[in-house]
C-alpha cells in the first residue's frame, strides 16, 4: 500500500525488520563496557539490541559486534535526489565543446599539497593514460597542464601560480588522519585570498574522502571523491570556465 512505499526502513529478510549491524570498541574492560555498549545502542534509538560478540582486546579495550533494529521510518516523500550523476559527454564531444566555445588553451596547475606523497589519484586524472580507460586531461588538446607532483608546500605553489597564471588549480589530498587535509586545503584558499589570486582561478580539490559539500565549505569551487573519472573533471572545468568566464582574468 501507498504508506509502505512512502516510509522506509532497513531490510534484513523481511520488510521493516529494520536490522542493522554495528561494531565498535569501548575503552573500558568487560563486563562494565557491556553496559556502556548497550546504552550507546539505545542512544542510537535501536531496539532488540543483541550483542552477538564481545572480546577483551587488552589494555582496557573491549570490542563489540551488535545487531539491532532501527525502529523509526524514513519518509522518502521528502527526499529529492539531485542528479549529480549527470551524464558526461565523451572525450571527443568535450574536446569539440572546448574548440568551439573556448578556442584557446586552458592552463592548469596541479599538485598534491603539503606532506602528501600520494600521486596515483592525481595522476589518474591528469596523465594521458587516465583512469579505467577514460582518457586523462593531458589527452585533451585544449588543456595545457603543469603538474608539480607531490609534497608541494603552500608557499611554493603560490609562487608557481603567480608565475604560470593558470585558469584552473587542481589539488589532491589523500592523507586525512587528524583532518590534516582540511588544514592543508583551508590554508591554501586563505593564502590565495590574501594574494588576490582566488578570483582569477577555478579552484578544485580531490581525494577519496573529498565531497562537493566539503569542498564548498573549504572555499573551493568543486571537490571530487573516490572513483572520479577524468572526463567528469574535464567536463566540469569546461562548463564552469565558460559560466564564470574565468578565461582572461590574468590579462
Amino acid at each position, binding site marked *: 500500500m501507498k504508506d509502505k512505499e512512502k516510509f522506509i526502513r532497513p531490510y534484513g529478510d523481511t520488510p521493516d525488520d529494520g536490522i542493522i549491524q554495528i561494531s*565498535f570498541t569501548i575503552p573500558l574492560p568487560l563486563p562494565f563496557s557491556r553496559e556502556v555498549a548497550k546504552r550507546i545502542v539505545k542512544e542510537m534509538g535501536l531496539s532488540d539490541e543483541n550483542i552477538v560478540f564481545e572480546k577483551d582486546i*587488552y*589494555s582496557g579495550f573491549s*570490542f563489540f559486534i551488535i545487531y539491532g533494529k532501527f525502529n523509526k521510518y524514513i519518509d522518502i516523500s521528502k527526499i529529492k535526489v539531485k542528479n549529480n550523476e549527470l551524464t558526461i559527454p565523451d572525450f571527443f564531444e568535450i574536446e569539440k565543446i572546448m574548440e568551439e566555445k573556448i578556442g584557446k588553451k586552458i592552463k592548469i596547475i596541479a599538485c598534491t599539497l603539503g606532506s602528501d606523497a600520494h600521486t*596515483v589519484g592525481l595522476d589518474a586524472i591528469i596523465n594521458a593514460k587516465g583512469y579505467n580507460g577514460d582518457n586523462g586531461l593531458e589527452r585533451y588538446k585544449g588543456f595545457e597542464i603543469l603538474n608539480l607532483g607531490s609534497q608541494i608546500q603552500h608557499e611554493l605553489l603560490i609562487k608557481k601560480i603567480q608565475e604560470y597564471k593558470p585558469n584552473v588549480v587542481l589539488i589532491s589530498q589523500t592523507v586525512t*588522519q587528524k583532518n*590534516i587535509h582540511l588544514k592543508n586545503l583551508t590554508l591554501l584558499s586563505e593564502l590565495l585570498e590574501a594574494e588576490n589570486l582566488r578570483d582569477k582561478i577555478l579552484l578544485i580539490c580531490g581525494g577519496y574522502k573529498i565531497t562537493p559539500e566539503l569542498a564548498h565549505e573549504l572555499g573551493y569551487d568543486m571537490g571530487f571523491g573516490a572513483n572520479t573519472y577524468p572526463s567528469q573533471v574535464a567536463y566540469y572545468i569546461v562548463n564552469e570556465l565558460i559560466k564564470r568566464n574565468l578565461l582572461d582574468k590574468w590579462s
Partner: protein
Amino acid sequence: MKIGTLSLDERKIIYAKSLGKKIADDVLEEIKPYTTKSIERAILRIFGVNGVNSKGIPYVNSIIDKFQEKNLISKGILFLISNALIKFNTNSIQRLIEEIDEDKINITKLEYGDKEKIKILAKDLIKDGVSKIVKKKKERENMILKYPLKEKPHLYVIVATGNIYEDAKQVKSAAYLGADFIAIIRSTAQSLLDYVPYGLTTEGYGGTYATQENFRFIREILDEVSKDIKKYVKLVNYSSGLCMPEISTLATLERLDLMVNDALYGILFRNLNPLRTMIDQRFSRFILHIGGIPIVTGEDNLIKTIDSKEFYYTVIVSQIINEQLAKNCGMDENEIGLGHAFELDPNLENGFLYEIAQAQLVRELFPNSPIKFMPPTRYKTGNIFLSHVMDTLFNIVANLTDQEIQLLGMLTEALHTPLVHDRYLSIENAKYIRNNLKSISNEFIIKDDGIIKKRAVEVFDKAVEKLEEISSMGLFKALEKGYFSDTKRLKEEGRGYEGVIKKDDDYLEIYDLL
C-alpha cells in the same frame, strides 16, 4: 613446499647475484668520496650528544651547520671534535658542543694539531661510543634467548595514532593479542625533515614522530609486556628519509629490533636526492649491523603504483641489488629482510597462483633472509568484508611459502590507519591460519608443467635480463631512465642534495677506525 621445490637453475641464481654485486660495487665506488650532514650528526649522536639548544634546535644540527657554514665540515666531525678536545684538553664532548653552539668557541680560529694524536683519540671516542651500542645489542640477544619468538610467520602490525601515549596503549593491546613485531610508523612529514624531532610527541599525521624519547618510551613498555607473556616482542621503526643515519643510530642506542631501510623508497616516493640517500644508507646499514639490528627493505612499494603483474620482476631486481648493497656494509644474509608483496589485482584469473609463484620464488632466491611479506593494499576498497577475505588469501600464501615475517593486512586498509579493533581482527585472522595450516608448506610438490612454475621462471628470467642492463649502465643511470615504478630521478636533484659533502684528506673514516 620447502625450499627448492621450484627447482630453479642454480647457475642462473649465482649469475643474477653476481650482476647485483657489480651494480652494488659501482654504487659504492661512486659514493665513497662523500659524507652527508646527517652522517656527521649521527656520529655526534654516537658520542651521546643529545638535546636541543635555547632556540630549540638539536645541538647536533646547530654544530654541523656551523662547521658547514665555515666550510670545515669536509674534514668530518670526528676529526674536528677530536682536534678540539685535544686543544682544550677536555673530554666532555657535550660541554664542548654547547660552547660551540653558543659561539663561545670560534671554530675557525682552531688550527689543527698532530694528525696521529687526533686519529688515536678519534679511534677511542668511536670505540666507546660503539661500546654502548654493543651493550644494547647484548641486552637484546639475552632477551631473545630468554623469550624467543616461536611460531612462523612472525606477525608484524603497525600502530599509527600520531600520539605516543595512544600508541603505547595500542602497542600493548597488539602485543597481548599476539603481534611479534610492532612498528610505529612515522608522521607523513618526518622523512622530509633534515633533523630528528626531540622528546615525547603527541602531534603526528598518519603516524607518530620518530624520536629517541619515543623509542625509549615504547621499548620500555614492550619489555614489560615481553616479560609478562614470555615472548620478546620486537619494536620496529623506519631508517628512512633525510635523517636515515641518525635514526639508525638512535635505534641502536634505544634497542629497537628491526628497521625499515631502503634508499630506493626515499628516492622514488619522497623524491630524496639519490646520491644523498645512498650515502646515508651505507652508514645506516653499517651502524645497524654493529647494533645487531636487521633491516627490512621496501620492494613492496615498487608495485603499488604501476601494473603489479607486468612489473613484479622489478621487485626481484631491487632485492638482488639491495642484498648486495647491504653485504657491502658488512651485513649478513640473516640481517637482510628483503621485502615483497601480495599486490595483484584480485580480479585476475589464477592471480592466487601467481602470488604463490612469486612468494615462493623470493623464498628460494633468498633462503637465509628474514623475508618481509607485505599484504594487499592498493586493490582494497571500502568493502571491509571482501578486504578481510583478501587478507586471508595473503595469510595462506605466507604460510604455504614459509615466509618469515608477514606484515598483516587490515580490513580497513582503504579507509584509515588501523583502529585498535582492526588490528585485533587481523591478528585473529593470521593466527587462525598459522595454526590451522601449520605444516602446509610440507604437504605438496609443485607440478613441473603447472602455472605456478611457469610464472616463477618467467619473472626470474625477466629480472635477470633487467639486471644485465642495469649492471652495464649503473644504478643511478637506471634511476634516471625510470627503471623503477615508472619514475625518473636525477642524481643531482631531489631533496637533501645540499647535504652531500665531499670529504677532504683529513677526513677520518669511521669504517676504517673499527
